[in-house]
């Protein structure tokens, strides 16, 4: 029920938030550094910098994400909708990091896969934790 609708809400949310701009900037900086240095940065950097950036971006956009969960729950979102919303956001972040770095052609396929996997898990876990937090706030505040 209405999964495509949730995808469109998530993409609009991200497109209008400032967190995503930071993610794009970080991604481009990593790609540019890689090109300037002329070789792939250490594996730890490849993995940790985007994850750190995703965390920062989500923290910047946390108010918007909160309002989305809040609004979705009120008007009848199910767990399926929330997972769809979370995975959409994760995929957008993955595309933002993977595409510019793929353009540098310095990384191996396993490196791309591990980065994508880490990003996916990070974002989905964060958003699901947030969903549970939202459920809790609904049932315990404003007596």
């Amino acid at each position, binding site marked *: 029920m209405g*999964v495509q609708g949730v995808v469109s809400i998530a993409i609009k949310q991200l497109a209008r*938030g400032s967190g995503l701009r930071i993610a794009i900037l970080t991604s481009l900086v990593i790609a540019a550094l890689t090109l300037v240095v002329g070789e792939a940065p250490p594996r730890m950097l490849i993995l940790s910098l985007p994850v750190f950036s995703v965390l920062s971006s989500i923290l910047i956009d946390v*108010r918007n994400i909160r309002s989305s969960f809040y609004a979705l729950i009120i*008007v009848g979102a199910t767990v399926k909708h929330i997972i769809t919303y979370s995975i959409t956001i994760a995929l957008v972040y993955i595309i933002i990091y993977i595409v510019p770095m793929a353009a540098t052609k310095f990384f191996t396929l396993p490196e791309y896969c591990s980065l994508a996997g880490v990003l996916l898990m990070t974002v989905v876990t964060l958003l699901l934790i947030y969903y549970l937090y939202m459920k809790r706030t*609904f*049932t315990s505040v404003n*007596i």
Partner: protein
Amino acid sequence: MVGSENMVEVAIFLRDVWKSYRVSGRLVTVLKAVTTRIYKSEIVGIHGPSGSGKTTLLKIIAGLDRPDRGEVIVDGYNLNMLDELGLAMLRNTVVSYIPQDYGLIENLTVWENVEIPLLLAGVEKSVRENRVREVLEYMGLADKISIVVSRLSGGERQRVAIARSLVNTPTVLLADEPTANLDWENAIKVAELFKKIRDDFGTTVVIVTHDPRLLEFVDRSLNIVDGTLKEISPPVSMRR
């Protein structure tokens, strides 16, 4: 047990509803044996001081929270019998809840916010567009459709929240402190709007408020003090 002849006219039925929360390690009983009936197409005001259990009661009726004990029936659905999915569908089709802070997505436009319940319900695009347009025109928001919600005034945001709550034609509308963030002039407009909605669609409206002035716009008032509900004016059915 509600008699079947009465049940046709009853929109919300609460029987012996109890709810407690653990606050700082201490168990606080917020609702104590709440029993009441709210009839179809009635506007009911629930009035009481802060912390008296008004919001908890509204959330239980909306299916956002569950009672520890007792029975809640909304438009014929026994909420105790519904799982998470059932409650979500109830909120999407039968009951609309407007929280005090409106619960809008700040960086989406008026149109996009009002469209959300229909998107979740998987309503076809052409039907969705017609319905959103109708509701926005009804609410006098037709000229604001592409404005981002965060740029609207308090009164306009309230109207967007009401528009979103009407878009799926619910039978029950629940509003938590709908005038708390408005000046008195806008508060009167909102109160009159609820009356118009009831008259036009036959919607049952429940308003939670700490503002006694708002009670002059309702058919019936219930007073909640220390988790106990008391009627302070007779039901419409009795007045007739």
